[in-house]
């Protein structure tokens, strides 16, 4: 099945400017919200009963994204510098290490999106070293999300900012807002079918600093 790749990169240009002090560089970055980025959405369920069967699965393909251009990048360009981050299920990768040809990277900042005005000097960007280490740690409660096993829901952890070094060595900050279609997490009481079919649609907001500085 085809993923709905034609993402509706939706620009909600929120007035976002980082304050600036006279003298030093004057920067203005906008905050962009992307809605319903399909990230390897579910196309079937493995036959059989749990625990071996009954698992929902997608096509297994990443959805590549350029933060600089605010648009999707075709899979055929996966071995290029055209993309900065890519999504597949709950995995978010950067264009770095053994996942991409560029010198990207990332780390998870704990705090508020708006409070991250300058990337701290002592920050250390991680690069992809799958499967043992990802730049953005995979798994529940390790990177950007927590899995609510009781209700079978994925919730982004509040206060997590993904600080990204892009393919071209610029910096961006990303906050994942939601993992479900329309940016609305299904109710705990919703059926598993609803939860399965509406998952893997990312809503996130980001700021991209095009001048190469670490200040937003």
């Amino acid at each position, binding site marked *: 099945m085809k993923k709905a790749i034609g993402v509706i990169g939706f620009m909600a240009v929120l007035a976002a400017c980082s304050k600036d002090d006279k003298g030093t560089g004057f920067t203005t970055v906008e905050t962009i919200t992307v809605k319903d980025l399909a990230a390897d959405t579910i196309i*079937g*369920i493995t*036959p*059989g*009963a*749990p*625990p*071996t*069967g*009954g*698992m929902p699965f997608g096509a297994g393909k990443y959805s590549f994204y350029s933060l600089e251009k605010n648009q999707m990048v075709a899979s055929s360009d996966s071995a290029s510098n055209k993309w900065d981050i890519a999504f597949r299920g709950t995995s978010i990768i950067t264009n770095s290490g053994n996942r991409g040809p560029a010198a990207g990277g990332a780390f998870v900042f*704990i705090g*508020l*999106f708006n409070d991250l005005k300058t990337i701290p000097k002592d920050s250390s960007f991680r690069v992809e070293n799958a*499967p*043992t280490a990802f730049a953005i740690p995979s*798994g529940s*409660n390790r990177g950007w*999300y*927590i899995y*609510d096993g*009781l*209700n079978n829901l994925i*919730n*982004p*952890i*509040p*206060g*997590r900012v993904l600080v990204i070094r892009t393919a071209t060595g610029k910096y961006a900050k990303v*906050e994942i*807002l*939601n993992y479900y279609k329309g*940016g609305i*997490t299904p109710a*705990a*009481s919703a059926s598993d079918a609803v939860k399965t079919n509406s998952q893997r649609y990312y*809503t996130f*907001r980001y700021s991209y600093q095009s001048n190469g500085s670490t200040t937003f």
Partner: protein
Amino acid sequence: MLLRIGGFALGLLFSINLWSQHSDTLSGTGNEIVVTATKTERKISTVAVPVTIISQQRILQAGSLRLNDILQEQTGLFLTAAFGSGVQMQGLNPDYTLILIDGEPLIGRTGGVLDLKRITVGNIKQIEIVKGPSSSLYGSEAMAGVINIITDKPKANALKFSLRYGSFNTADLSLNGSIRKNNFTYQGFGNLYRTDGFSIRPNSSERAIAPIERFTQQHNISYRFSNKTQLSINFRFNNERIKNIISVNNNGTIIQSEGLEKNKDLNTTIQLSHRLSEKITNNTRIYATEFSADQELLTSNGTPYTDFFKQRFARAENQTDFTLNKKLSLTTGAGYIIETANSTRYDKSSNTKTNRIGYAFIHSEWKPSDAFTIVAGARYDDNELFAAAFSPKLAFQYKFNPKFSLKASIGRGFKAPDFRQLYLNFTNTAAGSYSVLGTVEAQKIISELNRIGQISSLENDYYRLSELKPEFSTGINIGLNYTPITALSITANIFSNKIENLIDSRLVAYRIGGAQIFSYLNVKNAFTRGVETDLKYTINKKWGFAVGYQFLITGDKDEINRIKNGQVFTRDGNGFSSKLKRSEYVGLANRSKHMANFRIQYEVEKYFANLRLIYRSKWAVSDKDGNGLFNTNDVFADGFMQANMATGKNFTNGIRLQAGCDNIFNYTDVLNLPNLPGRTFYFTFAYSILNTKTK
């Protein structure tokens, strides 16, 4: 007469009558004997710790069948629904309340919960509930308190049966008999319980309460050698079979599974009591119990899944009570416990896991004056597998005047790490191959894996595994009792429990390839604080009522500190992260801030009726915003009120008829209260065939 029968019929049909019972169980005279508070017989009015007694008559008139039925109507107790029916006391999880039958502990907990449905109330004389840490007498598990079920030992030649039938084809048959001849006494009890079970989830063939058959029997033989020496042998066996049909709709394909669960519970006690002198009594008890759970899940396509768990517990204890003089008495005791477990959840079910515990306790009771009682005691438990526990307790009671008294106690409770926390050996091959290992297993397995180069990294927590300690609580209870007139009694108890070293699972190592290994560590601290109040009023010979209320605050100090430091976040209306405010924090999940109960009863001659209301305010159920703790932004279950009623009559020819309706308002919550059916009805017929008083 006609009128009364008319009223009875009306009560049955329209549930308009509300009432019940003998006034003595309503207000209590203070002369009831309680054993659980001190391990010796004491009048409840002289006990310095918070104690509640539930009488046989109240159990009967509430129409209860299983222990959870009657406990849910008590102030401050909430019945949880995961892993069977567990009891939350003073806001502590079911793991931390010790359940005793005739003073001996029940074993066989799943996920820390001892399923109270395993216990029939058909032969209970009274239930004694002691709140506050009681490890100074009872050792492990008595952190929140102790519930002791005292079985009935009638002093008569008697034979009676009781049959109850109700909704979901729930049937309960009890047979009680006792023989008393010279110095010999025998009591026998049998109970058969079965239900079709039910599901309130629409279109589901899987039942929240599965079809169950239970059979419980209990036999007690005692022989009095002399006025000084008595031997008693007790045997109890409970056997249950639970069947469940699970059908999973997998993209249109229905997969049927059939589950069968067999639980067995066997308890035997031999007790020799001997009065050495007027002042010294000695009690020797040998207790052995076994619990086994056998589960089998057959799937229409696939290999059967089996799970087996067996736990054994044997204990020898000697207790000596000294009455030194009118003012001072002393209780000392010591014992030895051997506990074993076998399970498919451990490395090999044939490998027996063993723990040995030696313990000693001493308690003294000093009455410097008639108005003043001071109790001081302590117990030391030495464990083979982990750190020892020392549990002191200090309590006093002061009677200002006959109407007004004050109780205060402070004590320490503990819960030893259980076999699961020591020996679990579980690897989930379906989801990422992560493993959860008990601490003993984890140290062994990880060091072996490390030796052969299969571990990629050891986390700091790995090095703390050898230090696993029991979980500890420190509890303070301060209570007031005010009885302005005989018909009215008001009690209030303020409690504060600080729980340390709570055990939780943590990541300790990564295998080569990234699979995670978790184990158990003492990592959390929590507190519960609150007030519980009870008011009982006997209006006149016919009418009486009782009101109970508990206010509860819970939390985790580390979580509060993280909030204060601005390290915890939630989401605002736009879905953007924001800092969590202290006022948004709600504490531990599954706790209601307000819980209340109300009971009104009416009784004329042999006829009774009652109406009981149980209220619980909303409680947090899941962490919607993903910040790892519970705050106002999360998912809550709605508060609710349950109303139950019963009415009945005792005829002079030994027949008792009773009918009742539970959950009159038909309140249901599919998601959060799957075990609460809608409105249910029952009818009871009981007949006392023989009842000859003997001397």
